[in-house]
């Protein structure tokens, strides 16, 4: 057997495990960024949603993305299980499982908008709907045989497909769910509902950062020419620049070197470089990371002011930075790398406005589609399920207790009325 074929497959299965391990990063990031009373719930829901997305992706998701169909959706390869097929130089199963991990990331991002107030049943139903329809359609448009891919849209590892799609769904959810109790005062001013553990959040970011090498470098889908090294280099530079830029901007503007903002800067750098890592020069990666770090802070402030309560900053980190990252290739894609990986050179390399236009169309169409479809799904869920938000009492007592019956931190929580009267 061809050793390169074998190495490609080994490389991608390693990358699959790295991307799957990013869920561990999300568990720590989300649990750390929210309050103690919801920690067990936030951590646990991540695991069962990986369960749901795995089954749904196997049943229909993969087929809708990569099956043979039309420019809008794929329509074959359902209940995937062919051990003989070869896709993009990989065993079909290896390609399948790598793609599955991406779908799981998109769903976890979407659930950022649910944090600390959605019913458990809402998670269950939306997990099925999102991974069956919302994500696969956008992924098909860009990575399958869809119309955006045909236009030459550049999205190497999924700033749009994974991050923006997830964030658009999160936006729909935050709007429908409304802010958490106590987030805003009557006069519209915001209160700080600080996360309970910055150490978890920081560890979560580091775990995501490490996993991102599976996400981006793995998106080479092979080891030929060891191009994954170049992708990894750009990824590292953007994340580093994002962290520093966010730290400096929040320090300068708010007078405090706020840790959560700095952490979001690192993530924003990673999200932004996800689309562009295979298309741009290292200096451009630094710039893309810096800009991501700056806009993520502006975006956090913007959403807070607009009374859109986004507890774990999914909208800013994955949405705003995802948009910027996607559009950035329209400016910075080099002719050589575009020739190698698809699309055309960016504006700053004499490519004119063509690629920038394609990237913009991609962002707008994918963002609107994911938002509108998610909004409709959630509205239908509200109608059918009699609401998707827990009651005021349940929210106050915490979702650990109301949705699962036990606290993530039992020793640290106040005694309930039940135990007092016993």
């Amino acid at each position, binding site marked *: 057997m061809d050793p390169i074929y074998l190495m490609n497959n080994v490389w991608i299965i390693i990358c699959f495990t790295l991307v799957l391990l990013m869920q561990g990063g999300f568990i720590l990031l989300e649990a750390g960024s929210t309050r103690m009373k919801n920690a067990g719930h936030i951590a646990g829901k991540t695991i069962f949603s990986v369960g749901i997305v795995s089954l749904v992706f196997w049943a229909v998701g993969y087929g809708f993305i990569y099956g043979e169909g039309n420019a809008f959706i794929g329509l074959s390869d359902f209940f995937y299980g062919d051990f003989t097929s070869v896709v993009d130089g990989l065993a079909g199963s290896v390609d399948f499982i790598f793609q599955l991990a991406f779908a799981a990331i998109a769903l976890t991002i979407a659930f950022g908008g649910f944090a600390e107030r959605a019913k458990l049943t809402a998670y269950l139903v939306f997990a099925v709907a999102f991974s069956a329809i919302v994500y696969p359609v956008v992924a098909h448009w860009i990575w399958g045989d869809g119309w955006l891919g045909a236009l030459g849209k550049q999205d190497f590892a999924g700033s749009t497909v994974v991050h923006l799609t997830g964030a658009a769904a999160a936006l729909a959810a935050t709007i429908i769910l409304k802010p958490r109790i106590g987030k805003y*005062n009557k006069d519209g*001013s*915001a*209160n*700080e509902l600080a996360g309970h553990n910055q150490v978890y959040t920081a560890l979560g970011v580091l775990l995501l950062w490490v996993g991102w090498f599976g996400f981006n470098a793995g998106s080479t889908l092979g080891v030929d020419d060891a191009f994954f090294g170049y992708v990894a280099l750009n990824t590292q530079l953007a994340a580093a620049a994002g962290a520093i830029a966010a730290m400096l901007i929040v*320090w*300068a*503007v*708010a*007078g405090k070197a706020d840790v959560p903002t700095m952490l979001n800067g690192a993530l924003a750098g990673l999200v932004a470089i996800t689309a562009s890592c295979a298309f741009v020069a290292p200096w451009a990666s630094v710039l893309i990371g810096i800009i991501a770090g700056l806009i993520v802070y502006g975006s956090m402030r913007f959403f807070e002011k607009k009374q859109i309560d986004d507890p774990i900053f999914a909208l800013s980190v994955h949405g705003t930075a995802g948009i910027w990252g996607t559009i950035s290739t329209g400016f910075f894609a080099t002719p050589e790398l575009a020739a190698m990986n698809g699309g055309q050179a960016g504006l700053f390399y004499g490519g004119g406005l063509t690629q920038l236009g394609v990237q913009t169309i991609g962002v707008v169409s994918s963002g609107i589609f994911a938002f509108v479809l998610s909004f409709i799904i959630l509205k239908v869920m509200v109608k059918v399920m009699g609401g998707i938000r827990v009651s005021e009492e349940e929210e106050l007592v915490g979702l650990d207790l109301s949705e699962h019956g036990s606290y993530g931190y039992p020793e640290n929580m106040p005694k309930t009325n039940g135990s007092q009267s016993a």
Partner: protein
Amino acid sequence: MKSFEQLRQYRQQQIVKVSTSHQLLNEFHDELMKGIVHTALKKVESEWGPPPAHFAFFLMGSAGRFEQTIWSDQDHGIIYDGLEEHQDYYLQLGTKITEGLSLCGYELCEGNVMSSNPLWCKSLKKWEEQLIQWLEKATWNSIRNYSIFFDSRVLVGDKSLLLKLKELSFSQIDKSPHLITRFKQNIGNVKKAIGLFGQFLPKQYGEKAGTIHLKETIFFPYVNALRLIAIQEQMTKSSTLSRFHQLPEKFSTLKIYEKDFINLLNNRLCLLLDCKNYDEVHFIKISNLTTKEKHELKRIAKNGYRLYEETKALIDKGV
């Protein structure tokens, strides 16, 4: 002799008349607090008899510096020139004064810097021991206690008692010049009101969102800088203004900041005129300020930071 209730009513009626003049307002506070102390003393005398020894009731904090606004909290202590067993009497007096002040609108001190607390109500001898101990230990807390003690003046009683204590502390500091560094470190953490781009840095969250804490962020750099100089130069006057007046020649470059401080004293009374209680009195809502007021406040804040930095630099140079 007026009762506490009468004094409370007197305050309510009169304070508005003096609320925009720094000098008149602080003179009014002094007059009122003297009345409260005398009433408290009468109450204690009726149960416990006359004071068993000479004593001094002294003010600290903003009252000690003659820098109170309309609303103020309590910071005070008692020194008595007597025996240990007299402490019960003076603690009783301190408790009555605390009650009276509280009734008349002076918030209790969160840090319990009040003459009802044995830490701040002692015989001269015990005070001397405590001061020496504070300065010898030189922990963050003991240095802070000394700094609080240092901004003090006698309101009722024997002024020489407090003077003796301050002089004793000076001789102690003379023996350990490194203490100046400790005093400097103790006030090293300044909360800034102005950011890198010259913008205000208001609170971002909660009911106080959009406000700045005037005392912590703008007032304290002036107060802390001048206190540092006063300790080093062994100045016994307690108000920041009188410390400005007495600045020795080697600190003459700092004299230019005096008018900013006077402006601050006067401006803040106007800015805080609508405050309803002690909780509100430190917070200024930026959006309520006119462009001119914002500009002036920023200028004063920046000059405060300059004064503070220049003071530290001069002291580091060993002037």
